[in-house]
């Protein structure tokens, strides 16, 4: 059923092109697809832990998808074959990486967007970026007032590339859309999300929102955006300390610290769902910065999902398994998950999947271990299966495109942390 029929010639060519570190077609998302293969060397170490077979399957899975379709795949894990959970983790960690910019280009883009050279507005500006961002790269700089800041510069013309990719995606998925396997509204939702991510002025507003709403968590640092040094393509924010997950784990943090961080991540997640009704939906490992004492820095607010249904009600129902009580209750839960479009008879088939998800997140029964062991990847597997089944049974809801992305990302992060978290208890604290 795949969204895009595999064309080995094109994929092969894409791979070769991928080595260039840029895409000749100007396709930004196409570039993403190549990145998976490109990054192979760097990720060798991690991949070695996986079975050869599973990694071969990852390639096969991803190889049949291209460009934006691949991103869709990431969001929906839509292949029919069973995906190994590690592959799901891999999918969740797939990130948008724009081609790197040399200093001259970074400066040119800075000036094109802000109208001034970096030296005119900063006391110091480092030519070499210190991090890659989803759509560009981040440079360290010092403001005139002496504050250290991170300056995110977007690769030029990304937005146009994404737009043309989505146009292609729409025609490529026409058969899938006609048959209902890739509903048009999901593509709309993805388009909305991706395009929103390209506007840094919008992201600066998101940063301010989260900073204000989450300031009660003393372990959390969210950068401050500098409005006067921000434009659509340049975002200046205060510098956030910490290490990305892979480097943090190299320090071999104790289980206690990993559990603490895990619990905090879950707490932040539920707080966003319940209180903010808004979700930081880009759980790329690079967006989390950890410190040895368990403090967390959260950066990159490009992909934010505002939730348009009563998610608190849904989670409460999942914890309490209210669907077991009767038809009416079950119909209510399914309506929350799948929206008004999916008829009850079809949605009902998803109940066992919901049961499985609830079982792994909120264990019930007196003897059950209240802690969720994220290292076991059971949850990732269940979630992947749920998404797959939803797609196969055509019971998708665009509301969940980015929520699933956030969820997969979060669980994958917790999986890497090998954290043990009492999810039910953490949820209870947040739902008020």
């Amino acid at each position, binding site marked *: 059923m795949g969204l895009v029929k595999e064309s080995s010639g094109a994929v092969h*060519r894409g791979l*070769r*092109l991928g080595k*260039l*570190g*840029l*895409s*000749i077609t*100007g396709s930004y998302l196409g570039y993403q697809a190549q990145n998976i293969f490109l990054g192979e060397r760097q990720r060798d170490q991690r991949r070695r832990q996986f079975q050869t077979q599973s990694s071969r399957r990852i390639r096969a899975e991803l190889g049949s998808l291209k460009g934006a379709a691949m991103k869709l795949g990431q969001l929906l894990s839509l292949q029919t074959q069973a995906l190994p959970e590690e592959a799901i983790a891999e999918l969740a960690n797939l990130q948008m990486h724009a*081609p790197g*910019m*040399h*200093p*001259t*280009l970074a400066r*040119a*883009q800075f*000036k*094109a*967007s802000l109208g001034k050279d970096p030296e005119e507005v900063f006391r110091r500006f480092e*030519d070499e970026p210190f991090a890659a961002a989803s759509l560009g790269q981040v440079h360290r700089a010092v403001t005139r007032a002496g504050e250290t800041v991170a300056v995110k510069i977007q*690769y*030029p*013309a990304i937005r*146009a*590339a994404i737009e043309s990719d989505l146009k292609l995606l729409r025609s490529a998925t026409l058969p899938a859309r006609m048959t209902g396997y890739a509903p048009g509204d999901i593509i709309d939702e993805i388009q909305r999300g991706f395009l929103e991510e390209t506007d840094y002025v919008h992201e600066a507003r998101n940063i301010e929102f989260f900073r204000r709403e989450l300031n009660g968590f003393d372990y959390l640092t969210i950068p401050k955006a500098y409005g006067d040094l921000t434009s*659509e*393509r340049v975002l200046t924010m205060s510098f956030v300390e910490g290490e990305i997950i892979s480097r943090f784990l190299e320090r071999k943090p104790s289980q206690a610290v990993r559990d603490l961080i895990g619990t905090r991540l879950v707490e932040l997640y539920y707080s966003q769902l319940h209180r903010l009704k808004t979700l930081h939906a880009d759980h790329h490992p690079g967006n989390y910065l950890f410190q040895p004492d368990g403090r967390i820095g959260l950066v990159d607010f490009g992909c934010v999902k505002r939730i348009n249904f009563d998610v608190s009600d849904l989670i409460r129902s999942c914890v309490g398994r209210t669907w077991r009580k009767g038809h009416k209750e079950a119909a209510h839960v399914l309506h929350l998950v799948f929206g008004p479009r999916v008829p009850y008879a079809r949605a009902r088939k998803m109940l066992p999947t919901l049961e499985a998800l609830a079982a792994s997140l909120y264990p019930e029964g007196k003897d059950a271990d209240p802690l969720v062991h994220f290292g076991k990847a059971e949850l990732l597997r269940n979630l992947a299966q749920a998404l797959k089944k939803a797609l196969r049974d055509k019971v998708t809801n665009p509301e969940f495109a980015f929520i699933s992305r956030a969820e997969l990302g979060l669980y994958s992060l917790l999986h890497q942390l090998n954290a043990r978290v009492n999810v039910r208890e953490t949820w209870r604290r947040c739902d008020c």
Partner: protein
Amino acid sequence: MKAPLHKSPPPRPRGKRIENKERTRQAILRAALDLFAEKGFYQTTTRAISRKAKIAEGTLFNYFETKEDLALYFFEQELAQIVDWYQHDKRVRKAGLPEKLFAIIHRLLERLGPYEEFIGAVYLRALQPSSRLHPLSLSAQEQNLRYLRFIREVLAEAAAEGEIPNLGDLGAYGFALFHLAVITYWLQDRSAGKENTLALLDRCLKLATHTLRKGGWDW
């Protein structure tokens, strides 16, 4: 506008008359460019230029017969400036070839930026074989050769570093054509900050360098 500086006595001291002439040429160009940027190319009269340059209107035509001559002189100045900048910018000299070439074209585009209308107007004319600005025109030849030699040198440096194979004259010619194409694109580019040109430039240069290094189209 400053007259060219001569620190030590030049090998063949130029006469005061030549120096004055050069100074007037520069003053006219400066006045014209200022007016183009301020009022637009089409709104600027020769009278306004001569008034701003403080010369008689008739004298103006002794220096520049047409606006193409003005453009030719402008490009000549810009080229000299870019060669000079390139030779003294240590960071760019150390950069990889795609960045060097990017910097050269981008710098020129940045300098052209304020006079876009003027450049656009002469650019179309320049494609006609009768134009003095035409790549094959004799008036422009000297300047074209200067440009080609400069690019050939940049490419030869990269070849010596092993970045690309030795391309000789052909490489410089190829780049010159590309440069023209980029200016055409840039003139039409309506994206914010002309970022589409930046992206195009970056992609093409990286692709070309890669292709040359790998010896052909490996796909």
